[in-house]
């Protein structure tokens, strides 16, 4: 007798996503949906979709979602959590949203110790607008705006947001994971679940999980090569592990 041991979580809608083949957003969506299902908080969770490739996250996650101005998710989450303390508020943001235009919002939300959960997807490139350099782009990485590779003298160094936030007393849990292989995906799931549980248990402070995620299209690689590049190059600059909490 065969028993079903793995299937699509209920909090994930039954439709095809618009993401490119091999994109890490799909894995991140599934992990969040699994967490929401396991904690049984689907009825009281409100998600905030970002601007970026995952702008249509509300079409895929079957929870209440709002769409906010570019980078302002932590500010909106602040208001939602303060007025509805019994709700579970999470924001889902990419590196263009959180590390570029929304740097101020995330730093001040962490600084104030807002009781929200942030899922930060870092793919080292601006995906939706056509593969331009992001603050998180690695040195010597070729993008459409750095055709000769990112040069530290001209474009600066990759921005390590998690390290920045970890020094703030208002942030209680910061962890960086990678969506590179099944073992790392399992670790990422644990981290996301822990971040949600902290909010569920009324822990005072912001919890953030950074997920290194492949973007095969704008890294101009096959999905398998993108995973390899992430494991060999990206993890050197963005070391995995629990930075705080």
């Amino acid at each position, binding site marked *: *007798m*065969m*028993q*079903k*041991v*793995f*299937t*699509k*979580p209920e909090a*994930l809608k039954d439709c*095809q*996503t618009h*993401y*490119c*083949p*091999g*994109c*890490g*957003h*799909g*894995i991140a*969506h*599934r992990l969040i949906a699994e967490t929401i299902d396991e904690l049984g908080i689907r009825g009281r969770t409100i998600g905030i979709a970002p601007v970026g490739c995952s702008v249509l996250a509300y079409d895929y996650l079957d929870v209440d979602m709002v769409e906010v101005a570019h980078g302002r998710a932590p500010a909106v989450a602040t208001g939602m959590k303060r007025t509805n303390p019994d709700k579970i508020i999470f924001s889902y943001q990419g590196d263009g949203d959180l590390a570029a235009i929304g740097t101020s919002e995330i730093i001040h939300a962490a600084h104030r110790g807002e009781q929200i959960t942030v899922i930060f997807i870092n793919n080292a490139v601006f995906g939706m607008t056509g593969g331009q350099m992001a603050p998180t782009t690695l040195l010597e990485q070729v993008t459409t705006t750095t055709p000769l590779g990112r040069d530290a003298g001209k474009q600066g160094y990759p921005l390590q947001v998690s390290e920045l936030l970890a020094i703030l007393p208002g942030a209680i849990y910061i962890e960086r994971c990678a969506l590179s*292989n*099944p073992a790392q*995906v*399992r670790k990422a799931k644990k981290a996301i679940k822990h971040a949600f549980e902290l909010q569920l248990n009324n822990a005072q402070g912001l919890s953030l999980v950074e997920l290194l995620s492949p973007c*095969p299209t704008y890294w101009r690689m*096959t*999905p*398998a090569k993108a*995973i390899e590049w992430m494991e060999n190059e990206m993890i050197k600059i963005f070391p995995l592990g629990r930075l705080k909490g």
Partner: protein
Amino acid sequence: MAGKIIINAERCKGCGLCITVCPKGGITISKQSNKSGYFPAQASNTDCTGCATCAIICPDAAIEVYRENNILDKPYKKTAPNLKGKK
């Protein structure tokens, strides 16, 4: 066959990540495209153990995994070698 996977061909985009992680090499890319024009993955299911690594890495949640009951019921302790007794 201790396990079996079912790939939802309409959700699958043929990225091939499942092929890279399958320990038994039991997944290939189909020659038939789906409605979106992608060539989805297909499973042979001959040696499948139901380990679910393919489903865990799948970005499109397109894989359902089934496993034999008796494997699930058997506690790990009983199958693991008894290391404590050895000196």
